[in-house]
């Protein structure tokens, strides 16, 4: 009996060493960088992915969409992430071919600070572009008052807080404003940074945190941030008027997303979605891969990573303030992921 116990121990030890050596051989480390907007959800995915599959380590650096694409072009990373997808001329610079995959989606909200903290401020479509143009400058503007009969609006200047750093959030927000206001399109246009009016009522703050803190500390302020961040920081948001004339709160955009058609290159924008219940500012965010990879083990690891994000990952999206991909989109992305070889 004693002997059999000894055998068991020896076999167990042998098995352990064997398995651990095979682990060491297969360990793959992927490096990615890019957008800061999906960084919280990506980091949580990669962490739980590593728990589920210890052989797969994914490092993600959130440095901004533009920086991520730059890293990708310089080949310093295995994959990039971007809120503003990728420009055609940048894609042409990659001989291996580029595969973009939408991984999650989010909304951008408008937050405000009014005395008494009234909830559910309604902002019509002809009002909020004008606020961000600096044309509507006081809270008791007749247009705002008319839309909000229940809220007592003070005679106070509107302080507009916008992003000081270059950001995908600004790009999506200005894309939407340009879509619904011709004047916004002609004067400011869209982009990671736009030339906001230089007046005393326009303040620029770095990052989502900066905007949040500034809006909180400034009576009469208004600003735009990502919904995931607002949810984490428990910040109220304005109801925005959508295409069909309804005032909608953020947080229920799965249907809106499902209605957006995904083209072959996977770059789908809908700066002003249809649907009575659609919140007007939604956007996908993408991961960017090379189609032909020299390192086949890495390509396999990337496909595994994508599969995990599409299945397990989507389950946590809602809790973190992102929008889970609709099932139809998951299928399309899964099919496209097979192009990564």
């Amino acid at each position, binding site marked *: 009996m004693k002997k059999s116990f000894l055998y068991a121990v020896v076999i167990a030890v042998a098995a352990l060493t064997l398995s651990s050596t095979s682990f060491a051989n297969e360990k793959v480390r992927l490096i990615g960088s890019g957008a800061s907007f999906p960084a919280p959800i990506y980091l949580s995915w990669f962490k739980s992915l590593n728990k589920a599959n210890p052989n797969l380590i994914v490092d993600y650096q959130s440095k901004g969409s533009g920086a991520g694409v730059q890293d990708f072009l310089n080949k310093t990373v295995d994959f990039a992430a971007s809120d503003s997808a990728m420009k055609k001329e940048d894609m042409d610079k990659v001989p291996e071919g580029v595969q973009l995959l939408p991984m999650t989606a989010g909304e951008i909200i408008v937050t405000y600070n009014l005395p008494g903290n009234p909830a559910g401020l309604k902002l019509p479509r002809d009002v909020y572009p004008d606020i961000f143009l600096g044309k509507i400058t006081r809270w008791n503007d007749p247009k705002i008052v008319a839309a909000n009969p229940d809220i007592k609006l003070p005679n106070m200047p509107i302080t507009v807080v916008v992003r000081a750093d270059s950001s995908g959030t600004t790009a999506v927000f200005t894309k939407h404003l340009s879509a619904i206001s011709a004047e916004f399109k002609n004067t400011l246009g869209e982009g990671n*940074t736009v030339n906001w009016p230089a007046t005393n009522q326009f303040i620029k703050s770095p990052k989502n945190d900066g905007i949040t803190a500034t809006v909180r500390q400034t009576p009469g302020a208004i600003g735009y941030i990502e919904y995931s961040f607002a949810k984490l920081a428990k910040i109220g948001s304005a109801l925005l008027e959508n295409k069909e004339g309804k005032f909608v709160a953020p947080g229920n955009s799965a249907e809106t997303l499902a209605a957006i058609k995904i083209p072959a290159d996977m770059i789908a924008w809908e700066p002003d979605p249809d649907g009575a219940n659609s919140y007007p500012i939604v956007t996908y965010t993408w991961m960017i891969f090379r189609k032909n990879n020299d390192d086949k083990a890495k390509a396999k690891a990337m496909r595994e990573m994508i599969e995990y994000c599409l299945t397990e990952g989507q389950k946590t999206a809602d809790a973190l303030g992102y929008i889970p991909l609709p099932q139809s989109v998951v299928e399309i992305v899964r099919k496209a992921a097979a192009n990564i070889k």
Partner: protein
Amino acid sequence: MKKPFLHNVETDSICQPPSPSVIFVDRAFRMLARLGVILVFSLIVVLVLEIGIKALPSIQKSGLDVITGTVWDVGQQKFGILPAIWGTLYSSLIALFVGGFFGISMAIFLTQDFLHPRLAAIFRAIVELLAAIPSVVYGLWGIFVVIPAIRPLTDELNESLGWIPFFSSTLSGPGLLPAALVLAIMILPTIAAVSQDALRAVPLRTKQAAYGMGTTHWEAILKVMVPTAATGIFGSLVLGLGRALGETMALAMLIGNSNQISLSLFAPANTLAAMLALNFPEAGPSEIEVLMYAALVLMLITLVVNVLGSMIITYAQRGMK
């Protein structure tokens, strides 16, 4: 004949020519020190060259237009940094004024026998702790404490004295004054510490002589001690200004980053350092050239301030002798 000192010569004396090992250590140390100097110096040269080379395309393309331009619009490829230069100088000078006043007062208070030496040492340590607080924390503190604290005062000033250009706008939140105030606190430890050293370096005899002439405590401080230590105190101000010009994160959070030139203390402004920090991460190639140009301008400003500072110090020293 008795030779009383002979044993000193014949026995092992401590006086002897340097041994080879001592010579070696000496030479090695000298080489190392020289190498260090060369490295530090070449680092500065490389830095300037690197930035200069990267800024060159922009300098050739737009010349002085960048320095005199007031619009920063990446979409239209228009880059002007005049508002940032203005904001950098304006905020730093206000900070120097406020921080300098309090820093020097503090140095006088801690060195001129107002306090028990042990208590003074504790106070000194506390002031120096201010230097260890990270910039971001200062920024957050500014947003959550300083801005709400000064808002009633600024509203009052704007209402009653709005015709003075300095008070001509309301403080909406981040702006020049809160940024300059926080900056003043950030440069305070530098000014206080260096001024204290300067005041301590005044020989005791000078002070005793002043008292001997029949001066009061305050006369001795203002007419003898401070003028004697003036060079060092001035040096502390130059150091403080240097730090204020380059301070980045706290200002990026507090100044409002608005590209406008305004005399109003309550209006949002911009600084070169904040502009660099906020625009670099996602800058495109053409933007990077201009940012390098801006960095060069910032370096030039700090350089001019330091050279002017040391010139004034030498001049003052000569005047005193």
